[in-house]
């Protein structure tokens, strides 16, 4: 049974067909990549999945429940959380606070409990904080827990985005270009982290990535988008040799060059 199923999802912005009847399956325990040239609709697909956009057509099923029309916070509560391509941290909040915000939907203290500083509230805060610290440690940010997010280096900010997304205790983690701007060794350490997450913290990961070394290195399955259409899908090695994929990236006719070289 698939964890996530997309059936013919389409999204138009005026005359632009951002997503054209995209179908996609994601199984438990899988790391899948979403690749494609710039403007292919990868981030649009994420935004549609997380409820920032509403699809014009099609169905999105997550654990056999439809997500279409749900508000973003409902989708997060249902078990999908994400990171952003253009880092969107809460700059004037500490690293710890950023992660704690990710837990919002899991914390259930009521207003009176907070105002009266009830013991239930206190113990829940304590549990939340220790869980947040665990995630911060997992992403290697322990040293910076009490610093403002805006003071972190670029790579650390990306890591914090991942910690924050994990705080919502998702089943499916969506990562939008997690290794962008990172050097090879940083990217490699993230790849190990992703593999560690599967099974223990999340059931599946879907990532958008331009770094082919990462894509080929960790994906169980690769989906390729071009002009909003899914043009290929399969094992990394199959996709790598797919004519349409190479043409989408390098232009028509480049296949022959590639084959010769």
């Amino acid at each position, binding site marked *: 049974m698939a964890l996530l199923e997309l059936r013919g999802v389409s999204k138009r912005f005026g005359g632009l067909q951002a997503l054209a009847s995209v179908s996609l399956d994601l199984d438990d325990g899988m790391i899948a990549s979403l690749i494609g040239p710039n403007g292919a609709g990868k981030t649009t697909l994420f935004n549609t999945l997380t409820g920032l956009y509403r699809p014009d057509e099609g169905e999105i099923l997550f654990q056999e429940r439809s997500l279409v029309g749900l508000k973003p916070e409902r989708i997060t509560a249902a078990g999908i959380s994400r990171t952003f391509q253009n880092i969107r941290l809460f700059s004037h909040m500490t690293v710890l606070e950023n992660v704690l*915000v990710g837990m*919002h939907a899991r914390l259930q203290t009521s207003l009176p409990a907070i105002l009266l500083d009830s013991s239930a509230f206190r113990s829940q805060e304590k549990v939340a904080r220790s869980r947040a610290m665990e995630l911060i440690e997992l992403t290697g940010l322990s040293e910076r827990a009490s610093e403002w997010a805006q003071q972190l280096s670029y790579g650390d900010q990306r890591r914090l985005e991942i910690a924050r997304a994990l705080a919502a205790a998702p089943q499916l983690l969506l990562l939008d270009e997690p290794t962008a701007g990172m050097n090879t060794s940083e990217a490699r350490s993230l790849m190990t982290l992703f593999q560690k997450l599967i099974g223990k913290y999340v059931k599946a990961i879907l990532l958008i990535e331009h770094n082919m070394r990462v894509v080929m290195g960790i994906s169980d399955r690769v989906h390729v988008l071009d002009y909003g259409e899914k043009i290929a899908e399969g094992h990394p090695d199959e996709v790598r040799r797919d004519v349409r994929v190479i043409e989408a990236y390098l232009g028509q006719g480049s296949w022959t060059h590639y084959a010769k070289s």
Partner: protein
Amino acid sequence: MSGALAALGLCGYIAASCLLAYFFPQSALAFLAVQASLLLLYYVAAPRNVKVFLGAMLLLVLLPALGWMNGYYLEVAIQIGIYVALALGLNIVVGFVGLLNLGFVAFYAIGAYLWAIFGSPQANQFIPGGFFPLSANWFFLFLLLSIAVGALTGILLGLPVLRLRGDYLAIVTLGFAEVVRALVNNLDKPINLTNGPRGISPITKPPLFFEPLLEFAGLHIPSAKLYPLYFYFLVLFIVGVIILATQRLENSRIGRAWKAIREDETAAAAMGVPVVRMKLLGFAVGTSFASAVGVLFAAKQVFINPESFTFMESIGVLAMVILGGMGSIPGAILGAAGVTILNLQLLKGLSLWLNGLRQSGTELAIPLVGTFSLSQLPAQFEPAKYERMIFGLILIVMMIFRPQGVLPPEQERKK
């Protein structure tokens, strides 16, 4: 060791400033020195329990004692308290949730009129039976009621407008405040609800529930002396509750959600924060503070009219929050205290001083120009009248040199 030294220094400073204020009751500066000791308490690195003890001494014993000698001190302290409460309420809306509200005073007015109408004969105009004014005992019930009414009006205004962001929201809140003021101004016909521009008086004061205790102790305090003290402690209590509530909220999932919305609404939603609900909650909490203090204000003033709730008042409270540092509780307190002291105490004191010089005809010797008699100083030159100008200058200077405010929110200190 250094902590003990600092504690000793603090004690010395507090004693000295209180003595000064005691021996120079006319001096605005002596009282300023007393007020400054609270700021010192905040800054100086003394042991925490010493600080708490000294602060409590100052607020619960020394200030009331000084106010007993000189009622003016209490008046200033009560005003500061009212503005601190307003600033803390607005700080939640503007500083935490990041929604620019230019009409905050409307909710203050709603609270004030709530008690003014029912705590005076005014309500007899539209409810037959002559039940009004309600007895003083109703005051505390209305204080609680005003929290609900304030929160409810906050939500009612919030529901349609919270879809707007930034400038658009600011304009709507500004308009709302003007609507409230216009309503209050004109609802004297066809049914006389608010008595229009003539205002409402006399408004019932809070009940002296502790009177039997005083009598038991054999104390007979004239009510002219008792009420200022009573209001002082009432304001202190309300401000205390508000500070506690704000602090607890700030360090809870609710406070974090508010700040997350301020920082990035989309990301907050993606992290599972119900943006609209949390915004409404922030609005409601802030406005309920304002309307609770409104009840107190009405009871203290005995007379209120729409003049007390103008747009400038909203701007004034906003300026306090900005000066102090948006999103910071100590900042809002300091901003409110600073601006109130400036208006009520320093500029007035300066005016009085200049007037004194003018009347005594003191002469200034200016080199090369000759002597200048201060009696020739034009009568228009009175600092108290330039309140807004001086205030504006301070704001401009602040925005250039310290745009984040005097006490901006800090990162958690490393343990």
